[in-house]
């Protein structure tokens, strides 16, 4: 092996400071003496610098809302599974979902339009979407108010754990309020 071949074979470890001291010194000496390997080192270093400085992508605005919706669905599935094992008859009435998507969150609106949620609850919650969109205070307070409306309708509401998962005080309102029934109230 020529000294250049040795340098190139050990270059990665050299760059990452992962060589024993003696080998490191040997590499440094070669770097000093060999224009070709010095250029190699310069190209990798500068190229990697440019790569690191590439502009970072930002998440799209609805990322948090979409994630929250998916987590909500996960929870709902889990709740369904729990209920199914608790009682066979519960299965028929479980999974009644009521949720409010703030700020024109289309996927969830479509979710209702598909008829997966009971009409009563969906109808009663739709006007709140507009209110939520304009709301810039604590999301959980408005959420509580909406929940109260659902309770008045006779929906047994159970808290889900992520109601403030991605609430941002100064950013756009992305909170999703979600609740599901455990009883059969809406099925009556």
């Amino acid at each position, binding site marked *: 092996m020529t000294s250049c071949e040795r340098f*190139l074979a050990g270059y990665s*470890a050299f760059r990452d400071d992962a060589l024993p001291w003696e080998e490191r010194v040997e590499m440094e000496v070669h770097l000093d003496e060999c224009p070709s390997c010095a250029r190699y080192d310069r190209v990798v270093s500068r190229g990697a610098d440019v790569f690191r400085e590439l502009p970072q992508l930002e*998440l799209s605005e609805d990322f948090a809302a979409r994630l929250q919706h998916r987590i909500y669905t996960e929870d709902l599935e889990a709740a369904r599974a729990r209920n199914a094992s608790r009682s066979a008859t519960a299965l028929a009435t479980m999974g009644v979902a009521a949720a409010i998507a703030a700020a024109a969150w289309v996927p969830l609106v479509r979710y209702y339009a598909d008829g997966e949620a009971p009409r009563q609850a969906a109808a009663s919650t739709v006007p709140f979407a507009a209110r939520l969109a304009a709301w810039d205070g604590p999301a959980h307070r408005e959420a509580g108010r909406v929940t109260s409306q659902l309770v008045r309708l006779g929906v047994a509401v159970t808290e889900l754990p992520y109601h403030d998962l991605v609430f941002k005080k100064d950013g756009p309102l992305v909170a999703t309020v979600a609740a599901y029934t455990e009883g059969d109230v809406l099925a009556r």
Partner: protein
Amino acid sequence: MMDVFARAPKAADPASARSALKQLDDSGLVAAYLDGEKRAFGELVERYQTRLLNFVYRTTGDRERAEDLVQETFIRVYRHLHRFDQSKKFSTWIYTIASNLAKNELRNRSRNPLVLFQTIKKNWDADARPLEWEDNTYRPDDLFRKRHLKSMVENTVDQLPEHHRTVFILREMEGKTYEEIADITGANLGTVKSRLNRARNNFAQLIAPLLD
């Protein structure tokens, strides 16, 4: 009237609870979540979402899909967090999930990359070799180089084969150790080292005409 959200926070003030979570390291957040503090998951999301987006984007080269794959990563974390071995590093685990999803994505689609550097492709896995000295025939002029350097570097990384690209990104952009890269990619340490050396060599071959 029932306000289900009134009984959620453990701390009296949600804002102070959130800032308390921000003080925790990853393993503290995982422990808090498993202990019933559900907001800890939100903090983990905050902490990793942009990093993962960029990692997956650099690996797959597809911005739209990158976001979907990051969503999927978090869903899998959410689903399996209770089974996560807390003696392990959370960041390694979440990068492993993201990396596997990215790899599957690449496997499932036929990439049709812009072929800029055909000559080098046959030699991806050859031993590291020195750079050719400048060939003025193909050397871009200064203005072109300055204007296009960033996108050329981006394209260059995109040209690397997947098993090189992933280790290159994990090391150069994410600053992962060899051991972490081995865990994330499922390769052994020796393989990681040789892939990284080859990736850097190929990167140098591709990028050299633009850089000096």
